[in-house]
């Protein structure tokens, strides 16, 4: 688990998970998407809470699925269009466990990791991204 301004290498992260004995690796990578006019996202976070929140989410996933390895990387700072923001990787002996845990982790990161995205647009404007109700609903669908 890492929270960092630095970029990361998804291939190297997958290789680390593949080296575990599980045999089933799922991953999700989120990048800054060009929605027309966006130049960068600035990610602010609450450092003292972030590590705790992510460790808590990972512990929930490990309690729920038989995981052999979990990698969560979340960047902060100013990230241009096309930059990687977040990576979740899971390793298990069971295909379904790795897939479900990966989806669970990214859904929960969306609603319970203390990050806030600000859009920086080519016309010079800045605006905080509003939380999507759909993310909340999807995270709640996992139950507790």
């Amino acid at each position, binding site marked *: 688990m890492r929270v960092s301004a630095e970029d990361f290498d998804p291939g190297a992260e997958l290789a680390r998970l593949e080296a575990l004995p599980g045999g089933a690796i799922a991953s999700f990578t*989120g990048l800054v998407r060009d929605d027309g006019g966006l130049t960068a996202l600035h*990610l*602010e*976070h*609450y450092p*003292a*809470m972030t590590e*705790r*929140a992510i460790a808590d989410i990972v512990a929930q996933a490990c309690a729920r699925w038989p995981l052999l390895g979990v990698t969560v990387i*979340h960047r902060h700072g100013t990230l241009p269009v096309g930059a990687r*923001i*977040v990576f979740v990787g899971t390793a298990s002996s069971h295909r379904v466990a790795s897939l479900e845990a990966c989806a669970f982790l*990214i*859904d929960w*990161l*969306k*609603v*319970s*990791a*203390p*990050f*806030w*995205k*600000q859009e920086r647009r080519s016309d010079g404007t800045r605006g*905080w*991204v*509003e*939380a999507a109700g759909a*993310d909340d609903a999807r995270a709640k669908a996992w139950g507790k």
Partner: protein
Amino acid sequence: MGQLKILYFAWVRERIGRDEETLPRPPAGATVAQLLDQLAATSAGHAEAFADRARLRAALDQSFVPLDTPVGEARELAIFPPVTGG
């Protein structure tokens, strides 16, 4: 007694114009919402930031809590919009 550190993030921070402040710990039983009422009286920025409580979230000692939670013995309170990471 003791102190309560208050942290602000995202547009809450921008409207208030600072990222943290420190208050004496509020009386026993006082909730986060009551503390926001008190802070809203201290500046126009606070008043604007705290005007719509439905758009605010809080954490006490780095754990999410509803706004009607008593501050209790917590040492750090954070006020921010709903998170948008991931």
